[in-house]
């Protein structure tokens, strides 16, 4: 068989597909093996037997010989994926070319990212608005290494991300050093601890089935990131398989709590004198909010919302204590605690020795005899290595199931058990909660006034100024608000499913800027006004996502919460230094982002955004917001650098 360079056309007019060729090669090797050892050694010494791939005539992709990546694009189109975010990489160049030339760069449309962490975090934010995954693509080696922290965030936040990794498994197809160092035996291994499922298909038929399966698994609660490895050879060689088909996507009904256990939970709740509902990640769809409102009103139970999703209207009379620490509500006064996919349930029902003391003691914060009921689907996907599952909770009743899907049956069971006496008690309780809620809100307004005219600008003032500009629009806050003392939660009226998206999940910083761009992208087709309160430390991880927003014309107002520090860590250092009777003034070392101050407006302008700042005078903030929002309403991203109080 003649040696033919792979970049020369096949002269035989008889193009072979790879599978046929490999079968022939295998027969040749078998014949070789039958020869006496000495004869074989001599032959090898004279002229090394060409490796099958080297001996393989070059194959042209002609009009009727589509590359495998075209078929892969057909598969992805069948899943109705809108976007694919990627920093370009040679291991998926075939797919990228097919996406654009064959797929028309639509459904999915290619999004140019400057960092793989940005790709994944964009998909993370997008999914929380769109309710479905975005695809991201990355090298199975260096790209995935960049992406890994963002994948962990999405995993901890129970968010589906559809990850496609390029890799060249067959050594014979690795052209040069770059392709060797970008190749890996088991690409998904690095992140298998924090993804739900992965596969490395070896044929296109296998690819189609696994692609559909991956989507189904990602979207079944607990929703999580999944990985599909797109082999480079499979992408770039012609479609050889006959009778290829793409399986129909059949999504699974979400797991629902056991009926007997749900009935028992209903009895515990109805019998309670003062029950509370703690909402973690509850609302997957708009229906989730309606159901939680229905349950709380039926029971007369306060909802302590951990604000990991848009679970409950913040101005509802049964909304929990808006001014309290959202992630760790005070549950000491309740006789029944119903936790719906709560984050760190043990942590919010126990108190541990503070960082300002030595030693470690833990004790329950719940009242003696309080019953704990848990409904969560996360238990269906526990893994061992990363400890996102939290401490073991001694619940009185633990129900494995998706909270949103379990709520209808629970509500109905509760209704059936409510007697006229219980109804009167519930009404009385609801009234008291509503009165306390109103007092909390008035107190919050007084607190917001405390540093109203201060410079740097108070986070309450920033939030109130922003609210004044957006409250009459169809708005969406696409950032977490914990770092600004939750002032938006305390002052704004959140009621619609897309008005809040929660936080990082894994507390990995660098999430917020790209997640807000992804969420704003999902909002764009609905004409919603996306705003983000953007922390300075977070933006510095991968600010190139600002360019992605400008390039793809994603309307988003980013208002910097520029406290010029990694402030959480700065507080920890002060706390520890004082605890050890040492100088707390060292806390700026390694945490402060000053000397020089970072000019975020110039950075944003450099990436093509409209930007203003730094703004330190609170009187200048309102007019600046109006100017920037006008640009956003015209379809472009904008950034205001606001110098703020620490929290």
């Amino acid at each position, binding site marked *: 068989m003649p040696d033919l360079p792979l970049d020369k056309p096949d002269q035989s007019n008889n193009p072979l597909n790879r599978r046929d060729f490999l079968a022939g090669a295998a027969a040749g090797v078998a014949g070789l093996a039958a020869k006496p050892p000495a004869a074989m050694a001599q032959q090898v010494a004279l002229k090394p037997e060409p490796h099958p791939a080297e001996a393989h005539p070059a194959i042209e992709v002609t009009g009727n010989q589509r590359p495998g990546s075209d078929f892969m694009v057909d598969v992805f189109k069948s899943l109705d994926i809108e976007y694919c975010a990627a920093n370009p990489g040679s291991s998926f160049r075939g797919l990228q070319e097919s996406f654009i030339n064959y797929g028309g760069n639509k459904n999915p449309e290619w999004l140019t990212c400057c960092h793989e962490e940005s790709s994944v975090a964009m998909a993370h934010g997008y999914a929380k608005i769109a309710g479905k995954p975005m695809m991201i693509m990355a090298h199975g080696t260096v790209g995935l290494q960049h992406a890994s922290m963002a994948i962990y965030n999405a995993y901890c936040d129970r968010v589906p991300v559809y990850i496609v990794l390029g890799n060249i498994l067959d050594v014979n197809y690795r052209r040069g050093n770059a392709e060797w160092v970008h190749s890996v035996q088991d690409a998904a291994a690095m992140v298998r601890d924090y993804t739900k499922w992965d596969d490395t298909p070896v044929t296109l038929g296998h690819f189609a089935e696994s692609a559909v399966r991956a989507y189904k698994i990602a979207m079944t609660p607990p929703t999580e990131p999944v990985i599909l490895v797109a082999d480079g050879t499979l992408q770039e060689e012609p479609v050889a398989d006959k009778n290829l088909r793409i399986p129909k996507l059949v999504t699974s009904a979400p797991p629902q709590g056991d009926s007997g256990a749900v009935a028992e939970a209903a009895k515990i709740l109805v019998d309670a004198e003062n029950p509370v509902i703690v909402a973690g990640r509850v609302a997957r769809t708009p229906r989730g909010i309606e159901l939680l409102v229905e349950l709380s009103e039926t029971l007369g139970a306060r909802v302590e919302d951990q604000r990991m999703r848009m679970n409950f209207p913040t101005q509802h009379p049964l909304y929990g204590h808006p001014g309290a620490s959202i992630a760790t509500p005070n549950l000491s006064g309740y006789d029944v605690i119903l936790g719906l996919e709560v984050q760190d349930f043990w942590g919010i029902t126990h*108190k541990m020795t503070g*960082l300002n003391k030595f030693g470690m003691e833990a004790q329950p914060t719940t009242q003696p005899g309080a019953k704990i009921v848990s409904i969560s689907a996360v238990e269906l996907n526990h893994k061992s290595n990363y400890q996102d599952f939290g401490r073991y909770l001694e619940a009185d009743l633990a129900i494995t199931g998706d909270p949103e899907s379990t709520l209808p049956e629970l509500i109905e069971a509760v209704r059936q058990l409510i007697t006229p006496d219980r109804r009167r008690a519930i009404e009385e309780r609801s009234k008291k909660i509503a009165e306390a809620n109103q007092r909390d809100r008035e107190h919050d307004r007084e607190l917001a*006034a405390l*540093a109203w005219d201060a410079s740097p600008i108070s986070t309450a003032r920033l939030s109130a100024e922003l609210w004044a500009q957006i409250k009459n629009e169809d708005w969406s806050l696409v950032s977490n608000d914990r770092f600004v003392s939750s002032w938006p939660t305390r002052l704004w009226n959140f009621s619609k499913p897309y008005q809040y998206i929660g936080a990082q999940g894994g507390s990995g910083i660098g999430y917020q800027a790209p997640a807000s761009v992804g969420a704003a992208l999902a909002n764009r087709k609905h004409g919603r006004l996306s705003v983000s309160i953007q922390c300075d430390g977070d933006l510095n991880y991968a600010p190139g996502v600002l360019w992605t927003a400008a390039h793809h014309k994603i309307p988003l107002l980013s208002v910097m919460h520029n406290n010029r520090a990694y*402030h959480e860590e700065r*507080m920890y250092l002060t706390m520890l*230094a004082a605890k050890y009777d040492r100088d707390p003034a060292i806390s700026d070392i390694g945490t402060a982002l000053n000397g020089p101050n970072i000019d975020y407006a110039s950075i944003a302008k450099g990436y093509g955004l409209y930007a203003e700042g730094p703004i330190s005078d609170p009187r200048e903030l309102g007019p600046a917001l109006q100017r920037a929002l006008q640009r956003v309403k015209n379809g472009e991203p904008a950034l205001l650098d606001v110098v703020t109080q*620490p929290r």
Partner: protein
Amino acid sequence: MNKFLVLFLLCAAAALAETKPGDVDNGKRLFERNGCYQCHGHAGQGGLAGARLSQNKLPQVAFIAYVRNPRSGGMPPFRAKVMSDQDLADVYAYIKTFPEPRAAKDIPLLNQ
């Protein structure tokens, strides 16, 4: 010990104790240098990380006693090796200069 009893004793002690005069400028310097502002805000407004200090009603002695042995799980104890009684008296004097806040009802943006 009951926390109300502790507060009562602190206040009683405060009434009897000699008030140390505070140096506002040094208090401001220490408030910033030693990181008080990090949780309590540059204007003492407080937040989810720390209590409000603006319009603080504690007498000086009670304030110093609290800083020496805070009950909160987040506040570190600032002992004499880090901040002397005089330092804390200076910080106390500075905190007392925080202006009376505007009433929320007089701020249109807080009545939206």
